[in-house]
């Protein structure tokens, strides 16, 4: 430590800890004043271009938010994202932006800026305390839209080990900084449910949000410590503080390293496999760090949306190759799992999108999209024989299984005839998320190599509960014995037919869920990478017999609540 830092007094700031672990590093301050935009004129012939830029930016941001909302089950998080979506889609905003471009002949960025500012002013004038939080949302949306239409992204040199201090950053920026090796994130804005916070958690990144005036109070290049647990941010830590936090950091690493080296076995020596669910290349280091034995679910939807679209076959190949290169063990690639509202064609509204045109139903109609993805996967499979598995989402009837097999065959012939080597043994599997497949699991298992249970959708379809509907969210019960029974039925069907079975839904990363799954005889479990140490800890502390006894009583109980109580009785009173 150099002298002038040692002289400076240690300063503490309070925020809310939302990420994982302790971060120590030098600050990089991103202080972009909310863009003041000048009213520059455009000519009449540019009106259409500027209007198009606006709708494109709106669409991009909407897709980014919807994608995120889809992955979230937490009620308050969804509400915030839905409120932001409602603002983006507000008809008055669009009217005003269009009018400014058309009638006043001003640029799209100015139209966005002045429209949002007008509404912010009105909200402030209304004097209502209720919508203070919404003003932050409005400013945030305004600045992001302007950044998109102007093609601005923060171009700050973030190096390995830096702690980024910002007002707010977008999810894509966060992933970009993470890829450069940032040590932590401090934000002025953003509650625990802001975009950046959610992603920081999923990346296992130390993160503290809601630190008031952080970009003013902290200079570039200062030594910082942030603690995700307490929400504390320390500037110029003195020697003692630094030492104690370094120890805390090391202990954590040691803890996860110890767990990584361990074999995955129950107390009485029955092996199990823990794999990771991921979506971005940036998550790969966490996969290794937490000792996942492979990728149990690679989501591919992000290739289609947001600001980093990589839809083309070659772009997809690069993405899949990166994932395969950066991991060991199997990689299960789930085909695009999107609904009809997410494609450019046939954007007709559906009354029940969750019961509608999505997953395999959509893919079989959108052959080009499907063939492109299958070909990209097959080309990469030749370079990594025995490692790639293909997972088909939203299957409900056997015809779809026959069709997807034909499609895979067609793609294989095309790729082979182009002279590429293909993994001949590439495994094909189905998502079990519709009860029709769970109930007849045996028949489906006969047709494919493996089944993978998606517990979120299976719960939604079994309980007839829309996850997004807050009025009935209490009915979304993961541990409902009926859901558990369908899982057990699937397990029996798969075992009888000798098909592999795994679980990649939220249930697998949850202690109660995982205790049931192991007890029910399912030992391949895929979850968020940072859940692995905790789950491994639980599974290694008890015997298979104990889990089996729990699973059996869980199946015999009559409510979700009872299952939770049973779990506590069996495993928490040690």
């Amino acid at each position: 430590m150099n002298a002038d830092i040692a002289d400076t007094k240690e300063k503490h700031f309070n925020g809310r800890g939302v990420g994982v672990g302790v971060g120590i590093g030098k600050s990089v301050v991103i202080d972009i004043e909310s863009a003041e935009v000048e009213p520059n004129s455009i000519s009449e012939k540019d009106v259409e271009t500027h209007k198009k830029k606006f709708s494109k930016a709106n669409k991009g941001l909407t897709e980014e938010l919807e994608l995120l909302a889809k992955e979230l089950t937490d009620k308050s998080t969804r509400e915030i994202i839905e409120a932001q979506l409602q603002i983006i889609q507000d008809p008055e905003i669009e009217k005003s932006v269009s009018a400014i471009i058309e009638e006043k002949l001003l640029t799209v960025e100015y139209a966005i800026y002045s429209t949002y500012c007008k509404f912010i002013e009105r909200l402030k004038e209304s004097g209502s305390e209720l919508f203070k939080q919404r003003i932050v949302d409005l400013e945030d949306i305004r600045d992001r839209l302007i950044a998109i239409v102007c093609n601005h992204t923060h171009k700050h040199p973030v190096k390995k080990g830096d702690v980024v201090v910002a007002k707010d950053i977008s999810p894509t920026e966060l992933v970009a900084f993470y890829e450069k090796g940032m040590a932590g994130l401090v934000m002025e804005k953003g509650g625990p449910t802001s975009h950046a916070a959610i992603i920081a958690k999923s990346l296992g990144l130390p993160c503290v949000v809601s630190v008031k005036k952080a970009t003013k109070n902290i200079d570039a290049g200062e030594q910082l410590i942030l603690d995700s647990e307490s929400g504390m941010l320390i500037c110029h830590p003195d020697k003692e503080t630094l030492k104690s936090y370094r120890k805390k950091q090391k202990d954590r690493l040691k803890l996860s390293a110890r767990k990584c080296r361990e074999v995955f076995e129950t107390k009485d020596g029955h092996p199990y496999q823990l794999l990771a669910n991921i979506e971005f290349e940036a998550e790969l280091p966490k996969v290794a760090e937490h000792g996942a034995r492979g990728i149990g679910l690679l989501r591919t939807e992000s290739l289609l949306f947001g600001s980093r679209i990589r839809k083309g076959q070659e772009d997809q190949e690069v993405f899949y190759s990166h994932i395969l290169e950066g991991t060991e063990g199997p990689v299960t690639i789930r085909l695009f799992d999107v609904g009809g509202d997410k494609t450019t064609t046939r954007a007709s509204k559906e009354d029940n999108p969750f019961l509608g045109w999505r997953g395999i139903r959509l893919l079989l109609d959108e052959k080009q999209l499907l063939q492109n993805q299958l070909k990209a996967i097959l080309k990469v499979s030749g370079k990594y024989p025995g490692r790639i598995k293909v997972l088909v989402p939203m299957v409900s009837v056997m015809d779809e299984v026959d069709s997807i097999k034909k499609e895979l065959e067609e793609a294989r012939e095309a790729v082979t005839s182009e002279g590429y080597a293909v993994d001949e043994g590439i495994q094909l599997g189905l998502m079990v998320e519709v009860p029709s497949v769970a109930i007849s699991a045996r028949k489906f298992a006969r047709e494919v190599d493996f089944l993978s249970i998606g517990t979120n959708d299976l719960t939604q379809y079994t309980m007839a509960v829309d996850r997004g509907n807050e009025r009935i969210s209490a009915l979304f019960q993961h541990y409902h014995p009926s859901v558990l029974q369908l899982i057990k039925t699937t397990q029996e069907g798969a075992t009888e037919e000798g098909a592999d079975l795994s679980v990649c839904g939220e249930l697998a990363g949850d202690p109660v869920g995982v205790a049931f799954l192991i007890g029910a005889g399912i030992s391949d479990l895929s979850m968020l990478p940072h859940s692995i140490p905790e789950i491994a800890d639980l599974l290694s502390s008890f015997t298979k017999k104990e889990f089996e006894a729990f699973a059996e009583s869980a199946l015999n109980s009559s409510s979700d609540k009872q299952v939770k109580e049973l779990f506590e009785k069996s495993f928490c009173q040690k």
Partner: protein
Amino acid sequence: MIKKKVTIKNSAGLHARPSAQLVKLASKYKSDFFIHSYGYRVNGKSILGVMTLAAEHGAELELEVDGSDEEEALTAIEKLIEDKFGMDEE
């Protein structure tokens, strides 16, 4: 075009969640929907419009619905407000 006067009954007023519900519901109908309140007139399908009303408990609103499904829309909107947006008083 039909009009109807209503009073906000839930104790927290038209705060974030009820506003969102109101806009979501109104947007399902083809008819135009405006809210008049203390001299203001806002688009009831605009979340920002509804928020700027900042209608609190006891606020009187006049609903104006105009279009092919106006009857149906008004009934549904009125019901939502009457039912205090389906929320138990927290």
